[in-house]
């Protein structure tokens, strides 16, 4: 075998390994090796001949205020990530990582050098060509410490990004990572030649572009005439902000909205009208959690955290707050109990007030102590239902819980960003967790987690897992991490539950990923 052929063989092998890892990361059951090539059917191809109809999409309680895809602050903005923009890679509906603006990729055997081939003929909505310079600029922007990008944490190991001709990109990592293509999904290829205008114009390469934008209220997107993947299926999509969930459901029932996002579980029966359906994601990885400060009393004591976990009546909470829709996390674990990566042998925190009382006593938390439950006002009423159950249960063992609802700014400034001290607070939050355990775990890792938890063994295992290409070996590492997380209980995980999205009859092609993000790029009206 000549040197060149040997290299080629290694290259092909790495393609297969890398793609296999990427796809297995999300769905280990479907461990079919898929090469990252352009020949497979792309999620990005619209398959529509003409753009028809207007889809109205309701969001309750808050509106879309900004369009920059790499500094997302509001989950309601997520559908735009795939409507206005493309990444180098993307998820398909089975949560497999597939090519998007990159047509194929290879990695060095030690998983530190990655080469990407970019798609040719891609243009921005303004008509400008997309090249490797744009890809590089976007990745560098995400890595810029002065830019608050949601993808920065997952890409922090990148050491250099180089263009390799007009359609090639070489990325070098400081540590081996088998998951770079997964991490790159979140870097959207916006037009960085005018960063200042990104938030207002949303210039990308996606199937749609901004038609009109009234920030915080309505956003209208229309087909992007320069889209590389065919004609957009809809003539228009309107994102409409509704004052609250009841008004949203009312307008959906009246047929004025085609789709509604984050339907409260209480309104599911009401939203079932005239043959409407609900999106069913192929897995649920988002979770309702309670964060505590693990560096200040009383929750700096692991026994106090375990006590709190035992005091949580997860079953009753799911019944009353989510009408039974949700998977309880008895292991107190960010990985869903339904995930194939979940270690079923974890000791469950079954609701047990006697044990809670005993553990609180061992932790030196005196009865009569008052905790503060910190939640949002006017949104997420289910958190308040959950809190009142905890309040009654804690009272039975002699502890008090004060419930405080605040507007979003007050709520955030109490515990965010990581590093703040909030002794005695129990903060309700929702983690939109990526299906890959490595990235789900990063939510509880030091520097990311507002719980301020730092466990050297856990951190070391996490680094090791990212650099482990073999899925079975990696799963073993995940099990070890789960055991530590469950025992240490840095955050209280109540239940894994997704965003409920209702769709009117006649609308097809929309889907929801495991993180609860809605994909409208293929949505259309059935003819």
């Amino acid at each position, binding site marked *: 075998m000549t040197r060149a052929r040997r290299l080629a063989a290694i290259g092909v092998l790495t393609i297969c390994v890398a793609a296999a890892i990427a796809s297995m990361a999300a769905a280990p059951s479907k461990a079919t090796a898929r090469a990252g090539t352009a020949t497979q059917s792309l999620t990005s191809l619209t398959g529509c001949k003409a753009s028809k109809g207007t889809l109205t999409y309701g969001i309750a309680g808050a509106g879309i205020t900004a369009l920059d895809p790499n500094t997302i602050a509001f989950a309601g903005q997520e559908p735009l990530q795939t409507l206005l923009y493309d990444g180098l890679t993307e998820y398909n509906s089975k949560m497999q990582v597939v090519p998007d603006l990159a047509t194929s990729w290879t990695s060095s055997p030690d998983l530190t050098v990655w080469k990407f081939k970019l798609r040719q003929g891609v243009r921005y909505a303004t008509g400008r060509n997309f090249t490797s310079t744009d890809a590089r600029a976007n990745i560098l922007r995400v890595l810029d410490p002065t830019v608050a990008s949601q993808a*920065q944490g997952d890409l922090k190991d990148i050491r250099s990004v180089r263009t390799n001709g007009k359609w090639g990109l070489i990325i070098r990592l400081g540590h081996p990572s088998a998951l770079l293509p997964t991490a790159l999904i979140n870097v959207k290829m916006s037009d960085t030649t005018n960063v200042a205008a990104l938030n207002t114009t949303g210039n990308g390469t996606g199937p749609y572009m901004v038609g009109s934008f009234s920030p915080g209220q309505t956003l209208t997107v229309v087909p992007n005439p320069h889209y590389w993947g065919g004609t957009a299926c809809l003539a228009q999509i309107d994102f409409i902000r509704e*004052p609250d969930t009841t008004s949203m459901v009312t307008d959906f029932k009246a047929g004025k909205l085609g789709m509604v996002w984050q339907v409260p579980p209480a309104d599911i029966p009401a939203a079932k009208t005239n043959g409407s359906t609900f999106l069913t994601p192929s897995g649920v990885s988002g979770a309702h959690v309670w964060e505590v400060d693990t560096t200040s009393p009383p929750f700096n004591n692991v026994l106090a955290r375990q006590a709190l976990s035992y005091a949580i009546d997860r079953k009753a909470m799911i019944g009353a707050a989510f009408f039974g829709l949700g998977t309880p996390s008895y292991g107190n674990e960010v990985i869903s109990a339904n995930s194939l990566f979940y270690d079923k042998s974890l000791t469950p925190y079954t609701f047990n007030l006697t044990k809670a009382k005993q553990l609180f006593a061992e932790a030196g938390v005196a009865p009569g102590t008052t905790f503060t439950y910190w939640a949002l006002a006017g949104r997420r009423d289910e958190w308040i239902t959950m809190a009142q159950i905890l309040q009654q249960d804690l009272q039975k063992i002699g502890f008090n819980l004060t419930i405080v609802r605040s507007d979003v700014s007050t709520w955030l400034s109490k515990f965010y960003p990581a590093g703040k001290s909030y002794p005695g607070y129990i903060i309700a939050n929702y983690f939109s967790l990526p299906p890959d355990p490595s990235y789900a775990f990063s939510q509880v890792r030091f520097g990311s987690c507002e719980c301020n938890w730092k466990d050297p063994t856990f951190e070391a295992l996490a680094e090791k897992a990212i650099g482990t290409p073999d899925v079975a070996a990696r799963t073993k590492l995940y099990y070890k991490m789960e055991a530590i997380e469950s025992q240490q209980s840095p955050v209280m995980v109540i239940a894994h539950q997704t965003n409920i999205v209702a769709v009117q009859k006649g609308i097809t092609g929309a889907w929801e990923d495991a993180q609860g993000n809605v994909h409208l790029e293929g949505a259309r009206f059935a003819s």
Partner: protein
Amino acid sequence: MLRYLVKRLVTSVFLLVLSSILIFLLLRVIPGDPTITKLGGSIKNVNPRAIEAIRHQLGLDRSLPSQYVHWVGGVLHGNFGRSYFSQFPVTTLVSERIGATLELTILAMLIGLLISVPGAAIGAIWRNRWFDAFLSGFTAIGVATPAFVTGIILIVIFGLKLKLLPTQGYVSFANHPFVSLKTALLPAITLGIAVAAPILRILRASITDVETAPFIRTAEGKGLFRRQVVVRHVLPNAAIPALTTVGVIVGSLLGGAVVVEYVFARPGLGTLMVDSVFQRDYGVLQTLVLLAAAAFIFTSLVVDLLYGVVDPRLRTVRGDE
């Protein structure tokens, strides 16, 4: 008269400055930081340098007096700044939404007057016990029902059950006048009822007052019809005290529109105001408060001047309220 006008204008400017300082300080005192809100809870691993960069970009790293002076300086040059969140100029945001609010308030005022003035007149002409009781009931319930309750009831009846009228949104009047008015109807009725009730109340009270006046008895003695007496003599005179109420209502309509816009998802200034409170979008909020205060002060000025026109006695002696 001119001296009075100048004095009023000077106090008005003083009032505006006072309002702007008041809201500026209030906003800075309350917890919550636009920088943090802008980042949003979903961004993990945020670098302290990113926070610094945003603070600098928003001008929040300056001292408070410097921030205020900078803002006032901008306002004097017609530059109201940009929204911290959407990056749009505040003037764009306001001009984009003022149409929805103006349409709603004008329509609501019209509906309010269409209910209250004929109502009071008919009550005065007809002098029917039952109609009187009906009017009293309407005013009492109109004053007592929170706008969001009226709104929800109307949404359920007309939007959901009868499916007659749109329940949310806004269509520009310039583009589709008819659809625009149709969309504005339910919120305008909601606000109109809230406007009509207090006007009706004050109008009826002052009608009772005026009717005992000697010149009315003279008019009646001349043998005029009841209708003529009411329309020509009673109503115009009774309208004077009602004018203050109308003035106060017009001035505070922007505030009143907040809840109604919220319930009917109208992209108006009210919704913008609530959002900017929650997000701590200081620049937007300061501008809106300035606008609301200006509207209030301007209308009370106009009402005062109108008083002079309607009632010449008041031109020389300035009574206190």
